[in-house]
C-alpha cells in the first residue's frame, strides 16, 4: 500500500485556485521531492494531506486511510511553531503527551537533530536554525513510517543543511518514507529518489531526477567544426544544431548516437567526443514551471 495517494485533489479559496486536480503517489520507502516555485501549492497540498485544510474536492489517503488518523506520520509544515516560554525539551514533552509517546523518546530525537545541549533553554532564545531542528525533532517523535517535511532546511547554515540531508537520507535508508517539499533544486537532487514538480497548483512532471534530466540530446566534439555543423544541419535540420563553447549541442534522441557518429565519420569529419547531454535540474524546472513564482 502506498503511503501517500492524492487523487484529483483541489483546493479553492474563493476565486483563487491553490491546488488543481493534483494526482500524487509516494511509494513506500522512497524519498520523494515535492518541487515547485513559491506559491505553487506545495504547502496547501501538504496541509490537505495532514487534515489541516479540507480539500474542495478530490481524495487523500495516508497509508490507505483518510486524513485524520496520523499514527505513524510525522510532519513539519511551513516552519517550526512552538511555545516561546517553554524550553525545547518542554515543548517536546508537550507534544509527546499529545502523541502518546514516552518521554524517553525526547532524548533520542534531540540527539538526532543535535540539540541536546540547548534543550533546557527557552525556545524564544533559539536561532532560526535551532528552531528548524526542533521542528524536525518534533516530527520524529512518533518514530514515523512516513515523514512529511516542508522546506526542512530553511534557516539552516550550510553545515546544518548537510546534516539535515544526511539525516533524511539515513531515514530513507532505514525504510522510512519521506515526502520533502522544497524549492532548492540541489537539495532535492542530492537526496530524492523521485521528484514531483508542481506549478500553478498542478503536477506538471513526476519522475526520477536522472530521467527528468536526461533525453535532451547529444554533445559532440568534432573537427572541422564548420563542416560538422553544416553536415548535421543538413541531416537533422537547422534548429537541431547549436554551437556552444566550441562543441555541438544537438537536439536529437540519444538512441541515435551511433548512427550520427557513423554519418559524421563517413562525411570525413573526425569525432573526438560524443556523449548524452543532460540538462541540469534547474533548466528542467524552469521549463516545466515557466519560471514563474506567483506568490500564492
Amino acid at each position: 500500500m502506498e503511503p501517500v495517494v492524492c487523487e484529483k485533489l483541489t483546493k479553492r479559496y474563493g476565486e483563487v485556485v491553490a491546488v488543481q486536480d493534483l494526482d500524487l503517489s509516494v511509494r513506500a520507502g522512497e524519498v520523494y521531492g515535492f518541487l515547485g516555485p513559491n506559491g505553487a501549492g506545495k504547502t496547501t497540498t501538504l496541509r490537505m494531506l495532514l487534515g489541516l485544510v479540507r480539500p474542495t474536492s478530490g481524495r487523500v489517503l495516508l497509508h490507505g486511510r483518510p486524513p485524520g488518523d496520523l499514527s505513524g506520520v510525522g510532519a513539519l509544515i511551513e516552519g517550526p511553531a512552538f511555545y516561546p516560554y517553554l524550553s525545547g525539551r518542554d515543548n517536546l514533552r508537550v507534544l509527546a503527551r499529545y502523541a502518546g509517546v514516552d518521554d524517553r523518546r525526547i532524548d533520542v530525537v534531540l540527539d538526532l537533530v543535535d540539540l541536546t545541549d540547548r534543550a533546557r533553554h527557552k525556545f524564544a532564545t533559539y536561532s532560526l536554525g535551532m528552531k528548524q531542528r526542533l521542528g524536525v525533532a518534533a516530527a520524529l517523535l512518533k518514530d514515523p513510517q512516513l515523514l512529511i517535511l516542508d522546506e526542512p532546511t530553511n534557516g539552516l547554515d550550510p553545515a546544518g543543511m548537510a546534516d539535515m540531508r544526511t539525516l533524511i537520507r539515513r531515514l530513507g535508508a532505514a525504510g522510512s518514507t519521506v515526502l520533502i517539499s522544497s524549492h532548492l533544486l540541489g537539495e532535492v537532487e542530492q537526496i530524492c529518489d523521485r521528484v514531483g514538480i508542481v506549478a500553478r497548483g498542478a503536477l506538471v512532471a513526476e519522475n526520477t531526477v536522472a530521467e527528468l534530466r536526461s533525453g535532451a540530446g547529444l554533445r559532440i566534439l568534432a573537427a572541422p567544426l564548420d563542416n560538422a555543423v553544416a553536415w548535421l544541419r543538413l541531416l537533422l535540420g537547422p534548429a537541431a544544431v547549436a554551437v556552444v563553447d566550441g562543441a555541438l549541442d544537438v537536439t536529437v534522441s540519444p538512441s541515435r548516437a551511433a548512427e550520427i557518429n557513423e554519418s559524421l565519420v563517413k562525411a570525413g569529419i573526425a569525432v573526438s567526443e560524443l556523449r548524452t547531454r543532460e540538462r541540469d535540474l534547474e533548466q528542467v524546472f524552469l521549463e516545466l514551471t515557466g519560471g514563474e513564482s506567483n506568490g500564492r
Partner: protein
Amino acid sequence: MVGSFRAELLKLGKRPATWLLLGIALTLGALFAYVIPYLGATSGTTGATADRGLAATLPANIVGNTLGGYPVFLGALLVVLGVLFVGGEYGWGSWKTVLTQGPSRTTVLFGKFGVLAVAALGFVLAIFLMGTVASVLIALAEDASLTFPSAFDIVRGIGAGWLIATMWTMFGAVLGILLRGVALAVGLGLVWMLAVQNLISQLAAPLLPWVDSAQRGLPGPGAGALVAALGAPTGTPGVSALMGGGPATLVVAAYLVFFLALGAVVLRRRDIL
C-alpha cells in the same frame, strides 16, 4: 483525551501569564473585598459604600464577599486567561504543530476546556483562601467573632464561583477561536465585561423595559444575580439580584454549554492556516 489534558496542563502551568493573572486576581480581591472596606469601616468614613461596614469583611460573610468580584473584574481576568490559552495557538501558529502529532481537534479543544476548568477552580480556591486569611486577620484585629458559614454554604459558594469562573474562561476561549488570535479577542472581551455590561444595566435597562427583561438572559447579569443570591454585597459592580439563585445558575450554565459547543463547532469546521 488524557494525553491532551496532560499536555495542556503542562503548558498552562509553565506559562508565566497564568501566575501573573492569579497574582493580580488575589491582589485586587484582597484590596477591594477586604483592605479598602476594612480601612473605610475603621476610619469612620461615610461614603456611598460605607454601609457594608466591618461585618462584610468578617469570616461569617466570607462566601458572599469573595464571590462579589466574579461578575466583573475577576471575570475579566478569567476572560483574558481563556483568550490567552486558546488564542495564543493562533498567534504562535502552533495549532499545526499540535494537530500533526495526531490528536483530533475536538480532543485538543476539550483538553484545553478541561484544563481551563481546573484553572478556574484553582482561582476560586485561591481567592477563597485569601478571603479566609484576610477575614480571620480582621476578626483577630477587631476582636470580632470567628464564626464561619456552614460547610454546605462554603461548598455551594465555591461551586457557584467555579461555575461562573469556568463560564468566563470559556467565553475568552471562544473569542480566541472566533477571532483567531489574542489581541482583538482580549480587547473585545474586556469591552464587553467592563463597558457594555455596565451600559446595559446602568443606562439601557432603566430606560427600556424590554432591555431590562432581556438582560436577565445575559451572562454577566446571570453571574451577578447568582452571587447576589449567595450574599455578595449588592453595591459591588455587576452584583444585582435581578433573579433568584436557581434561574441565575441556569443562565450561567447555559452560557457555559453554549460556549463549549460553539468553540468545538467553529474549530472543527475551519481550516488551520
